[in-house]
């Protein structure tokens, strides 16, 4: 049986209500690194997967263990793609979910990247570590509508060459002439011939017109803070820098307050937030 998902007040609602996960089956699993896997999920009941915007997230439920907010890293026809790092009990279970197994899905939630702000402008995507998966759907959109945007510069940093995700896809992106994709790692052995240094060390090489640029940044908070600072120093206006924030999300619909960041609820008001709005809170200790 095929059915559309309902919504309530703009929020997605599964058949059993807004807090009940919808069962999805793991259609395929790709191990990106020793502790990061990409799962392609499809609804068990054959329902239509809700459409999502680049930058949104779902709550993924490992049955009997727990729920975690995981960004959508792709949305091919009729399926959902999530890239999960094994960090805690829930994410370890999701990481290990084999093809054919079931996970629960609530969502999509959050506001996504403000793509329209980038029309007619140069675009910088800066990703640190697992910050690349939430930016991947955005990059797909930018490339699908390539003529609407100016230069596209991607700077992706990871700890080591072994912790790079989407490695083969990155090689294809790097081969394209209509975007520039820089990869850097924090440290490497002799078998790595690429750049070594944090993401901010590659920004001076990025070619864009700062006054006419929109930057989308995702990664560890410290990386985002320093990347935003480096972009500001290059002349990118604070209003044109967007960060995807990560906080401990529980309800995902703005009720519980677990993900509060200053006056913002990251699940409801974010996860993508303009730097100009949240800059005062990024420097607050233990916020």
């Amino acid at each position, binding site marked *: 049986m095929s059915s559309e998902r309902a919504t309530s007040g703009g929020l997605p609602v599964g058949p059993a209500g807004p807090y009940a996960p919808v069962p999805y089956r793991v259609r395929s699993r790709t191990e990106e690194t020793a502790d990061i896997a990409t799962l392609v999920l499809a609804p068990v009941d054959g329902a239509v997967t809700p459409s999502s915007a680049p930058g949104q997230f779902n709550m993924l439920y490992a049955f009997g263990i727990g729920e975690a907010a995981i960004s959508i890293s792709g949305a091919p026809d009729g399926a959902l793609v999530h890239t999960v790092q094994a960090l805690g009990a829930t994410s370890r279970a999701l990481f290990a979910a084999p093809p054919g197994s079931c996970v629960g899905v609530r969502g999509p939630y959050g506001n996504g990247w403000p793509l329209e702000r980038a029309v007619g402008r140069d675009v910088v995507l800066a990703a640190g*570590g697992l910050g690349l998966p939430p930016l991947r759907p955005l990059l797909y959109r930018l490339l699908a509508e390539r003529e609407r945007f100016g230069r596209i510069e991607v700077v992706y940093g990871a700890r080591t060459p072994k912790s790079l995700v989407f490695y083969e896809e990155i090689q294809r992106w790097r081969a394209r002439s209509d975007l520039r994709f820089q990869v850097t790692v924090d*440290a490497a*052995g*002799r078998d790595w*011939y690429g750049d070594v*240094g*944090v993401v901010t060390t590659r920004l001076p090489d990025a070619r864009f017109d700062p006054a006419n640029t929109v930057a989308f940044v995702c990664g*560890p908070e410290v990386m985002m803070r*320093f990347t935003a600072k480096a972009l500001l120093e290059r002349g990118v206006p604070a209003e044109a820098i967007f960060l995807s924030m990560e906080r401990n999300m529980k309800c995902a619909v703005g009720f519980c307050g677990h993900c509060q960041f200053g006056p913002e609820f990251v699940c409801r008001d974010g996860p993508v937030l303009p730097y100009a709005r949240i800059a005062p809170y990024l420097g607050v200790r233990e916020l």
Partner: protein
Amino acid sequence: MSTESPTARIARLEAHEFFRGLPAGLVRAAAGAAALRSYRVGEFLLREGRDAEEFIAVEQGKVALEVFAADRARLTVQTVGPGEVLGWSWLLSPHRWTLDAIASKPTQVVAVNAAVLRERLAAHPEEGYAFLLRLLPVLAGRLHGLRVQLLEADVL
């Protein structure tokens, strides 16, 4: 650079991002003490513990800065590319390199005799000050990068 005219040597240094805009007298003095060097992939430019006798500005290619510990593999902690410079050990006593630098792409550098450069900077404090103002952001950048790496590594 021995086959280049003095004017061409000066122009080469003036075109390098590090030297661009520095006092003309300093650039002329550096050009007079400079040599152009090329390195194949895997060749060392510097070795830890050896005398730091040159100030090296990268023109083309890529150089990996490596640290070494006996109990683990060599680790590249930074790469340096065109427009950047290698280290500051040549300026600080005892003038010995504190890491290895190895070409990770075919690389061309301008190597300025460190003794000549030190003497020039000491004899012309205004030039020395301008030079240090140019070099300090390099140090600050490396320090900043290490701080971010430390924070991201979540070791605190």
